[in-house]
């Protein structure tokens, strides 16, 4: 399951980087070469960056590659190390669950309720913000998976 999700995320990220690149190059070209600045590229790029940042963050969490000061986890061994790692992943889950999933869903709900739309593309902002709870769920899942995969302490 994790493998499938990570694979899908990887493809999504490649597409996002590709689309953002083309989008901004298009903006530069439309302004300097065709003298007809496009109005939507600016906004689209910002939205795609939110998606790239958040889904990328979930991907990096899945690969356990976020920057951390890992002096303490490195020093501990056996049971203590395992307990600390469970605590760390647990704290990550608490953040993702509370802020990204609960706060994010409420944010999406509010923006749909108020029918907030983006200025030039007229996209409901809820679609942009939905990346917050979605990546939050992924972060919870990956961290849970990491806890379950921890090497059991030797007796």
């Amino acid at each position: 399951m994790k493998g499938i999700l990570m694979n899908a995320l990887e493809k999504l990220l490649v597409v996002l980087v590709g689309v953002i690149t083309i989008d901004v190059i298009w903006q530069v070209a439309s302004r300097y070469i065709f003298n007809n600045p496009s109005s939507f590229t600016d906004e689209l790029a910002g939205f795609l960056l939110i998606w790239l940042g958040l889904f990328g963050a979930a991907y990096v969490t899945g690969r356990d590659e976020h920057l951390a000061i890992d002096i303490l986890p490195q020093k501990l061994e056996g049971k203590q190390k395992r307990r600390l790692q469970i605590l760390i992943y647990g704290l990550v889950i608490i953040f993702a669950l509370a802020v990204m999933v609960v706060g994010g869903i409420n944010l999406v709900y509010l923006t749909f309720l108020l029918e907030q739309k983006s200025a030039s593309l007229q996209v409901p902002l809820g679609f942009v913000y939905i990346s917050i709870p979605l990546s939050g769920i992924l972060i919870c899942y990956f961290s849970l998976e990491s806890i379950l995969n921890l090497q059991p302490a030797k007796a």
Partner: protein
Amino acid sequence: MDSIEVLILILSFVILLGIGVPIAYSIGLSAMITLLVSMPSLPALTTLAQRMATALDSFSLLAIPFFILAGQFMNRGGIATRLIDLAKVLVGRLPGGLAFVNIISCMLFGAISGSAVAAASAIGGFMVDRMEKEGYSKSFSAAINITSSTTGLIIPPSNILIIYSLASGGVSIAALFLAGYMPGLLLGMSLMTVAGVWAYVKKYPVGQTAGFQEFTRKTLRAFPSLLLLVIVIGGIVKGIFTATEASAIAVVYTAVLSMVFYKEVRWKDVPGIFIETSKTTAIVMLLIGTSMGMSWVMSFENIPQEVSTALITISDNKYVILLIINLILLCVGIFMDMTPAVLIFTPIFLPVVEDLGMDPVHFGIVMVLNLCIGLCTPPVGSVLFVGVGVAKISIQKVIKPLVPLFLAMLLALLLVTYFPEITLWLPRLFGF
């Protein structure tokens, strides 16, 4: 009283960092805990979620993934070796020539790629072996490589200066980029001085003088990479395009250069390059998202004002306060990566120094230069880790040669702090 919230914020952050929670999540969690104490839960969580997302919705931040992407193309596209060759014909025949070559290559590569870690791995991977073959000690070579890699963060284009521009509420990126040149050169030259003396004492070999023909050939080979700098910086400074547009141009330029002309990157490598780019980008973006959440919480709790009042009660002398701020930032830099440090401490310290009449452009450079030192120190120096990694040497061994280089960096920091002209001369020349 607010002081309890402040205590909660600082304590929870330090504890979370200390037990090894990833930095971005530590920042987010401590902001969350603090806000939950002073606000009803659902609005607090929703506000934080919104801050995280809106922090990323910024056109100028887009320059970051693009400069990272351009750096990736350069890393794999054979640009590093061409820059090293150029540096060699420039300074190879001075005493300690190869050390100078390492420093200059790092300055050039770091400037073009905007990443100290990329410079440390691309240049170090090549230079440390080369230096060892010619009789330099490995620890000295690695120390040179590690410290000089940070110069690229100050010499433009530089992602961290873009982040500072965001954190400071819109200081001109063009002015910051121009301001980075002289302090970056000063830093490079201070490191070169130490390297020169060290090499002279240890009687390290002097390289051969390059003939005119070779000089021209090597310069021409490196020319396309250097031209990129001219296009990007020239375009931004002249106001022809924004930093983000320039970074997109840099992507096209490096992609064409490494795929069509140097032919060292193939189409099948591109998805991998995109993945690497999105990983590095996401690490930075999550830090930006949660740091902006935290800095919102801090201003909600009036922390910047309280710090500023506290600082002014200690002293109202500009030089003393700048010294205190520098000392605080040095400690911060030892334990924290540069991006969150800039995002969290800019809103706290900038109002204080602006009250003292300091130019925000000047403060940005001082702050980044200061935090560069922390990148080379344990326990969390990312450049240190990459540098010892590519040199295949232990951290303990590299500390001794690092000490004189740190002193050189500190000296450069003091000069840049107390002589604003070093920083502001160039931007003023261009009318900023």
